[in-house]
């Protein structure tokens, strides 16, 4: 089968470069009550990614939502080694961006985030595509075999 390669361009929200297998959802995701940082699993029963492992994957979803406690859930995931490798959003909301920003500051761990892309990432990227997220340049490279 022919390999597909594609690069989409957007805004780097959080700097750094990381890659991994994509985990894609068209639904918004809340960290508080939606994700267990101690296991890396999505625990929101109403979410289509329910039961999926986030650790080391490139998480692709439209927006974040939810509580003002969210950023600390993200930091706990980083502390426990269960954070995603990178995140791609249509638009990143402040709670998630703050969480990833503080992961750099407190744990020296970079989880690059790119948003506002020239194509809708939720439609272009498919689960299990190999994705490289470049938060320095705002690029998302997609490889599908």
């Amino acid at each position, binding site marked *: 089968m022919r390999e597909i390669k594609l690069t989409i361009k957007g805004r780097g929200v959080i700097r750094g470069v990381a890659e991994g297998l994509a985990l894609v959802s068209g639904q918004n995701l809340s960290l508080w*009550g939606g994700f267990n940082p101690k296991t890396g699993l999505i625990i929101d029963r109403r979410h289509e990614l329910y039961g999926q492992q986030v650790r080391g994957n490139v998480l692709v979803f439209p927006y974040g939502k939810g509580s003002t406690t969210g950023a600390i859930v993200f930091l706990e995931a980083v502390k426990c080694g269960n954070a995603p490798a990178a995140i791609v959003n249509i638009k990143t909301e402040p709670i998630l961006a703050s969480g990833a920003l503080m992961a750099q500051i407190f744990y020296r761990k970079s989880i690059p985030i790119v948003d506002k892309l020239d194509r809708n990432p939720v439609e272009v990227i498919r689960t299990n595509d190999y994705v490289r997220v470049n938060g320095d340049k705002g690029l998302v490279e997609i490889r599908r075999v």
Partner: protein
Amino acid sequence: MYLTKQEERMLAGDFGESVMLAMKILAGVGDIYGAEEMTKIASAHTVMTPYRDIMDAGVEICEKFAELGTKYSVPTTLDPAGMDLQRWREFRIPEDYAERQMRIVRAQGKLGGIPVWTCTPYLHGNTPLLGQHVGWSESSAVVFANSVMGARTNRLTAVVDMAAGIAGRVPKFGLHLDENRRGEVLIKIEVKPKTLKDIDYPAIGYFIGKHVADKIPILMGIPPDVTIDQLKNMGAAAAASGSVALYHIPGVTPEAENLGKALQKENWKETLELGLRELRETKEEMCITIAGEVDFVAVGCPHYSIRELAKVATLLKGKKIRRGTEFWIYTTKHVEMLAKRMGYFDIIESSGAHVLTETCMLVSPTDIYGFETMMTDSGKCAHYAPTLCKTEVIYGSIEECVKATIKGSVQ
């Protein structure tokens, strides 16, 4: 982002490592969201308080700031802790959990956090004035500060709220700017104002949050004699079912002397009607189940005021709650003290109900008791209890809640 000379020195570490750390966080958030500058704040409020929510990363960060020897530079109030700080043994909180919670208490103490331990700091001395900038988290307090007090804050998140308190500043974007405070969605409440009861307000909030998400609603049809408690409970529900951080009520809230002011001379983008049918349907939707046995009744989300506690005491006077049903009422130390002086506390405790302070059902480990069905008069609690407390939920008025504690069930 433009920084003053002083702020540049803060970021460079001239005022110590904790101020530098705080400025790094605030400048980083400001850069992402296109803030042009920082604004000084009158106060902060932080959710870096319950162990259940902030976990070990939270303990570590509180202690890191505390060890750096810094103090909050503006009055910074504390959200509820993850257990009743005095009666936790009586409520069977595990020792290792309590030990971590106490580390948070000590660290926040060193930082000079004001230990109100409440989600209602606006009833306990954190009272910014109209137009003043503040840096708050706790979604129910943020919506109250913006809407009812006319103060200005974004929905800060955990740790960023501590950074705001330490640096005394926040990046100026979003709700700090006039143009982002304009009402967008007109909500026409078509229920006779005189017939609106306490129990209707969280339902109105829940309906609004669900439909407007994070847009700014203008509420038409709320009577001018609406109480602070009703607004407190309505806003909390709207901030839970949606991300509402500001609403206007023409003739009631300070930035909306009239509809024109709330709209800042623009037109509204959308209209929504809320009649008796929508109100009834929303209340049904807030329940996971509607009848049957109730083993846990929990109220005080947000924390009960002294007026609300007085009402419960009046309803419980001379009554005993049923064996097998727990009735827990969450409030602050200050309100508890008033309730003791006024005789309400004794009435409540002698009925078999309990007054728990400085915590609530959502941020303490309520799931350890194995309750099956919770009843509450709180829209915010009804929204979160199924996931956080792992119970079924029935939403009802305080009169209905008290009835359920006596009968042990709802028909």
